[in-house]
């Protein structure tokens, strides 16, 4: 049985390129929209890539900026300057 991880963002303009980057980089990810928010489920792991966001915005992006629009997440986090990954280890 696969274990989903998820991450949710406020549905704001700042979140849009982040959500687009996640959907492009994580085949199998599913975005569910609710009022005011978007929740993305992904089987086993989900990665956010800095360069993928920067390609979309055309400007420098510090991955810790996601804190500004982040609502919630699940799974273990592995983060460095270039990527942010959620996963279940087992």
């Amino acid at each position: 049985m696969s274990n989903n991880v998820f991450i949710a963002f406020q549905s704001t303009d700042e979140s849009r390129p982040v959500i687009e980057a996640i959907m492009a980089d994580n085949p199998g990810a599913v975005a569910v929209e609710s009022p005011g928010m978007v929740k993305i489920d992904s089987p086993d792991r989900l990665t956010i890539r800095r360069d993928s966001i920067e390609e979309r915005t055309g400007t420098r992006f510090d991955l810790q900026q996601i804190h500004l629009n982040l609502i919630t997440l699940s799974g273990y986090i592995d983060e460095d300057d270039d990527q942010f990954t959620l996963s279940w280890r087992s």
Partner: protein
Amino acid sequence: MDTRTTKSRLGLKDRYAAMTRGLGWQTTYQPMDKVFPYDRYEGIKIHDWDKWEDPFRLTMDAYWKYQGEKEKKLYAVIDAFQQNNGFLGITDARYVNALKVFIDGVTPLEYNAHRGFAHVGRHFTGAGTRVACQMQSIDELRHYQTETHSISTYNKFFSGMHHANHWHDRVWYLSVPKSFFEDAMTAGPFEFLTAISYSFEYLLTNLLFVPFMSGAAYNGDMSTVTFGFSAQSDESRHMTLGIESIKFMLEQDPGNVPIVQRWMDKWFWRAYRVLTLVSMMMDYMLPKRVMSWKEAWEIYAEQNGGALFRDLARYGIREPKGWRDACEGKNHISHQTWNVFYGYSGATALHTWVPKDDEMAWLSAKYPESFDRLYRPRLEYYRERQRQGRRFYNKTLPMLCTTCQIPMIFTEPGDPTKICYRESDYLGDKYHFCSDHCKEIFDHEPEKYVQSWLPVHQIYQGNCFPPGTDPTRPGFDPMAAVLDYYALEDGRDNLDFEGSEDQKNFATWRGLSQRN
């Protein structure tokens, strides 16, 4: 001129290490055990504090920067909402009653969380753990303040919010969240982390802050959804602290596993019982509903918790003992709780009502196994009585569970037609419980729970009347004296929504906003 400075910075992992490693030292004037007297007596063994990792690796400078930006965004929304009477755009004045539960029941918990994390942030020996707890302590103070500011606009126009802190310390249903938090704060630091960071934050706060706040958006309450999501972005760090603290304890010593398992059993159940209030907010108090309590439970507890328990199995951890009963309860607890609040509306700082036809149809579609068979007939009976001018108010006081302090309203596992009663004897007295799990919590630490301040007992003992009250005088009305002591204004803060001042005012103001 080229100004390339970004590459000379340390990488994230190095920055985090620089901020959290090598900060502590071995004390010489006093033994370490006297400087850090609390982080060993619970029996948790830590061999290497440096194994503690904050997965977000947020350093203090980044923390201040992002929190400052969040505050600016949030306060711009709060200002705009207040300036433009944004409350006139909510779906229905009944919605405001969910905010009353929030400001009276939840916001004071944020303040207690601030105190609790400040305390444990001083008392862990490891510097990384202390930094994480101190950040959380500041977050929690921020939540207390932003929630108070966001909801203050409603307090100018609606009842049931004007004495939030006073009520939190006195009113019967608010003793449920209050006693939960005080139970955690009076435990040792590792148990506190298991209680609040893991059981409450990781497993269960999503249920409050995600679907309920999305519900606030759906009901036109921009102010609440903004503070809710702004707070929840901090919660995702807190959840990470919760899961990290569990993993850290389990990996440090195999002897920690049974201690942690017992705490997980206890605090999952304690936190689940507190969230009973949220189940009712979602199913009954949001005029426009996003999802049912049952659906939220399936997504945020069953799927997410299930994935976590499967992962923790490698340490020898199993799902919490009350897990199955909690999952069965998803069909029932919101209906059982609303029934109690409806009946005791004479003594609440909020209004209740019988759901309208379309709302009952929604409940029936969301709860095919339970609503029509068990709960609809009771609501229709209430509605009929109300039609006849005999609105039902329960005038007797309920028996409370000694552990969770909720009235004994829950039903037997496997039989939702039979109330569940359990009891224990301790030093010649009898104690009552709503469930096997609340009984087991008491039986393990009876010397703690016999000290519970149970609102109903306190009323019967005469401790909930204003000073100078003479209960022996002729015509003494104990209920009126209790409301006086609570500082609840009878006929204004309490009773049915139908005919309330909130209902009349909102209709008038909305009318004024739509006509010349």
